């Protein structure tokens, strides 16, 4: 195969799973001790791009992230994993944004420079599951989501995408395209020491960008989650909890 592909990986930085979020006057705020990491699904997207690089199929891999200054840490990690260059679309607004706004910012950045754009299937915090599809629609590219396997041909990619535990779809996409990978694809690598040292010296390009936060079409507010069940908390010491749960399971005729 002669073609070498220009690749962009969209990386989101998210609070780790243990992060505490509280409402301050109705506005969500994370605890100041919050640790931010690369969105788990985007690590799989990075890995997929790097797999192509390992096969000598890429001319370059860029990583891009939208967010405040702190997202550079996620980009640094992307460089350590092996991407060639990193770009930060910096906006000081630290809230969770409408995916349309994020997709617009990435689309503007990605205009015509890439053959394949990778994203994770969703972000762990917002779980919108639409940024990849929106970027594709805005650029006029084809796309596929939940991708678990891909193989490159000269001008197309054959993808397999997961529908559920039992069923998947397989078809060809023309290049350029946007691919949102599912986590059952290749396991993300740990950065090698040489890549960590290389990444330390690399510059992260910063692009200032003002995100349009409200379209006026919707208004929103946050609350603690509503309970959909009447949940009975089993109280007491561990041994009291054990006895109580045993009684409940016995009543439910499974013990």
């Amino acid at each position, binding site marked *: 195969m002669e073609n070498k592909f220009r690749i962009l990986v969209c990386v989101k930085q998210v609070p780790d799973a243990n992060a505490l979020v509280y409402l301050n006057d109705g506005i969500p705020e994370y605890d100041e001790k919050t640790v931010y990491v690369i969105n788990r699904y985007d690590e799989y997207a990075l890995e997929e791009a790097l797999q192509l690089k390992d096969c000598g199929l890429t001319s370059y891999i860029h990583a891009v992230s939208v967010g405040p200054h702190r997202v550079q840490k996620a980009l640094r990690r992307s460089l350590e994993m092996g991407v060639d260059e990193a770009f930060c679309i910096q906006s000081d607004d630290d809230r969770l944004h409408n995916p349309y706004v994020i997709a617009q910012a990435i689309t503007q950045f990605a205009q015509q420079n890439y053959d394949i754009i990778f994203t994770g299937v969703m972000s762990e915090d917002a779980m919108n599951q639409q940024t990849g*599809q929106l970027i594709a629609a805005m650029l006029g590219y084809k*796309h596929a989501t939940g991708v678990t396997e891909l193989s490159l041909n000269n001008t197309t990619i054959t993808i397999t*995408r997961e529908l559920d535990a039992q069923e998947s779809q397989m078809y060809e996409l023309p290049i350029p395209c946007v691919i949102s990978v599912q986590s059952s694809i290749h396991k993300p690598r740990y950065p090698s020491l040489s890549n960590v040292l290389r990444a330390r010296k690399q510059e992260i390009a910063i692009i200032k960008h003002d995100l349009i936060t409200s379209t006026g079409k919707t208004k929103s507010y946050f609350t603690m989650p509503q309970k959909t069940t009447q*949940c009975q908390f089993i109280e007491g010491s561990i041994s009291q909890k*054990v006895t109580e749960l045993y009684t409940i399971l016995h009543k439910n005729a*499974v013990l």
Partner: protein
Amino acid sequence: MSILIIADVKNRTINPSTLEMLSAAKKIAKNNTMPIYILIPFGNIGGDSYCSSEFKTFILDLNIEQYSAHVLVKYISSVIREVNASYIIGMHTPFSIDYIPALSVSINAQCITQIHSLDVAERITVTRGSHAGKLDHHIVINDTPIILTVLPGSFEPYTITDVQTQHITTIHIPEVNKHIYCNFITKDMKDTSLDEADVIVGAGKGIGSRENLSLIYEFAKVFPHSAVAGSRIVCDYGWLPYSKQIGITGKSIAPKVYIACAISGSSQHVAGIKGAKTIIAINKDPCAPIFNVSHYAVVADIFEFIPQFIDFVQNNA
């Protein structure tokens, strides 16, 4: 002003959860002042029974094997314009989520995904989990059109009583690129343990390692007809095979009792456990979102609680 429901597909036929969207639409339509349309995206998925005098049904004259997000967006957008749809409702499943958000660019409307409830007052408010399920995000809709995707299991399925095929209109698709060919691959699922079990014990990321799964297996063994399953991440780590994964991208379960062990309870996982009669969650984090959908909550470290529970059963059985 109208409501357009886009039927979901599962196993190459209409996903019966499509009827849940109909309930959501009925709620939005208030006193039936807004007409409801159902769009069946393919002609060969058995859409003929999804029609009645209550609403009009459109079927796109495409085969499921001609699946292409691009083609669907093109033709569904024109149906949206034709029926002047204010609310476009799709299912939040891997099948539908592939193309529904892309409609938002072609019809210039916002798409709100994974909603689990909606409230109808002067304005319509939809609610989705946010911040990894730790908060609810309520969105008040001030302007339409708007696109919504509904989390499976969030609304009661609507019953269509009078199937009347004269309310179906087939939309002819002029020409579709002949190169489009979508292959459907079905894995042979010999493993039916999750379908047959009375009790399913689910393992989450909080179990910490593959080795600790043995504790979950021992726990499950306490129950006569039981099986072990896990959340997506546990399968991603390779601790359990994907055939044991519960959630939107895995299996939906309906045992007598589901016991979630060290599972935080993402909406993706929760959508797969709605069928369980009783849900019990054991988690050391008292704020874990899983407790919002559980019937019984045990706030405890599984490594402390489960061994004691096993001992207790063995001494009392």
